[in-house]
Structure formats: C-alpha cells, structure tokens
C-alpha cells in the first residue's frame, strides 16, 4: 500500500469540504445551503473512513444523508418570513 494515495484522497476531500462549508455559509439561497451541508456531511464520512473509524463513518453517512437533510428541509418549508 502506498501512503501517498491516502494523502491525495485526504487532501481532495478536506479541501472540497472546507470550500463547500464556506459556500454554504455565504450562499444566498437557503435550499442551496442545505444541499451544501449535505455534501459536507458526505466528505466528513469519507474522512472518517480514512481515519480507520468505520463505525463512525456508517453513523455519519446514515444520519447526514437522510435524516439531517429532511429536518432542515422541513424547517425551510415551515418557517414564516415576510
């Protein structure tokens, strides 16, 4: 096994995670922010997988993919703004 490969995957995942997080904070549309937070959760799951924590990766994937997204989408549709 070549450790440089894992370093490359970690760099790609980490850099894209931070860029997506910054964009999620500063994007104007709230629905786009929710989708970007879902992407951050995905890359966090890849990083947990890389850090030899498969249990944590399963939990993060199953929580971040479905339940967290649905909670925020529900809030977006029920919040009242004038």
């Amino acid at each position, binding site marked *: 096994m070549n450790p440089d490969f894992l370093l490359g995957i970690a760099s790609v995942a980490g850099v894209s995670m931070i860029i997506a997080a910054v964009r999620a904070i500063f994007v104007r549309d709230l629905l786009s922010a929710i989708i970007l937070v879902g992407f951050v959760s995905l890359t966090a799951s890849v990083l947990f997988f890389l850090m030899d924590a*498969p249990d944590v990766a*399963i*939990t993060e994937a199953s*929580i971040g993919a*479905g*339940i967290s997204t*649905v909670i925020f989408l529900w809030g977006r549709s029920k919040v009242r703004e004038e």
Partner: protein
Amino acid sequence: MRTFIAFLLALYLVFFAAAAFESFGEPQGLGRIAEHYAAEGFEEVGAINLVTAVVVTYRGLDTLGEVSVLFTAASAVILLLSVFPLGKPANKPSSIVLLTMKVLPGPILLFGGYIIAHGHLTPGGGFPGGAVVASAALLVLLGCTQEVGFAKWLTFAESMAGFSFAMLGFWGLLKLGQFLNNSVLFLGIPGQLLSAGIIPLISAAIGVKVASELSGILVAYRCGGGKE
C-alpha cells in the same frame, strides 16, 4: 465587517484549541486505558469489534446516560409540536416517490437489522443500525399523506428497549456484582454470530431505542405531535 470581526473571534477560539492540542504532542501509541482494551478486550468480552465492546460494556453506563439525553431531546421536540401544531401537507407524491416508498423500505430495514445483529463482528452496532432503521421509516413518511400505522407503537417500543437495557445491566449486578457484566451469558467462540455474551442483546436494545426516538421526531414533524 461583522463577518470579519466574527472571523477574528473564531480564530481566537480555534487557536486556543490548537494550543491545547499542541501541549498533548503527537500521539505515539495507545493510551493506558485503550491499551488495556486492545490487549484484554478480546478475551474479556469476546467481541471482535472493539468499538462496540467499548460502547456497550466498558462504557455501558455512559451509553445509558447518552441514550437518556437523546430521549430528552426527542420528547422536547414531540412536546413542542403537540402543543403548537403546524399544518401537514396534503400533496400527493409523484410516481417515483410512490414506487420507491413501496419497494425500498424492506431492504433498508433488513440491512439495518443486519447491522444491529452483527455489531460485535463487523462495523456497526446499536447506534448506526438504529439510524438506518429510522431512515426506512423516513422513506415511508416521505410518501404518505395521512397518519401512519406504526406511529402508535413507537412509545411502547422505546420504553421497552430502555427498560430491557437497564434490566440487562442489573442482571450482571445481581449475579456477578458488577453493572453490565458481560459474562452472565456464555462468551462463545469469537467470530461467530452467537457469541460475546450479552453484547448482541444490548445492541438490539440500543438500536430499537435510537430508531424509535428518531422516527418519533420525524413522525412529529409530519403529523404535528399526534397522540403521545
């Protein structure tokens, strides 16, 4: 300007965290407790997956407390939504959602059961398996427009799971003088499905509890609290 000030403040806080980690230094090996878990856990508990062993038996009392925290948050959500009910959608789902809702919950439920049951052998255990089962419930709830049938069983399942977790702990206390002692059942051969003492039972209890609490939150979101 406000963002810049917030950035400086956050940088200050994160710098504190980085300084604290700097004083730890780069870890060279396992800590004292983790070394004991890695060296003795295989014989003491009989589980292959050390993380499940730590969650369920070594730190089982902490897990009981954490599950109580989860219960508090879920019941706060359900209470708020039953006092201040919001409207629910009357929109019919499109055919893709309807077909997915009929086909996919079965396999997801089966896979969640696999993750819970094999918690001591492969990655998984109570918490991830409960989240997967709650995802199957979420899929059913996405497509429905009226009350769902399983909603009234959630409270019963949740309380029975919590009760059996505590009772399994007290069994060890009565028989061997130690809360959540794993040796009250036979340990078996590590690597087989029926091994590792009471770890599969406690995993099942945690899984049912987590799944019913997360599904309770989602049902409250869909149906406005309902009759708890």
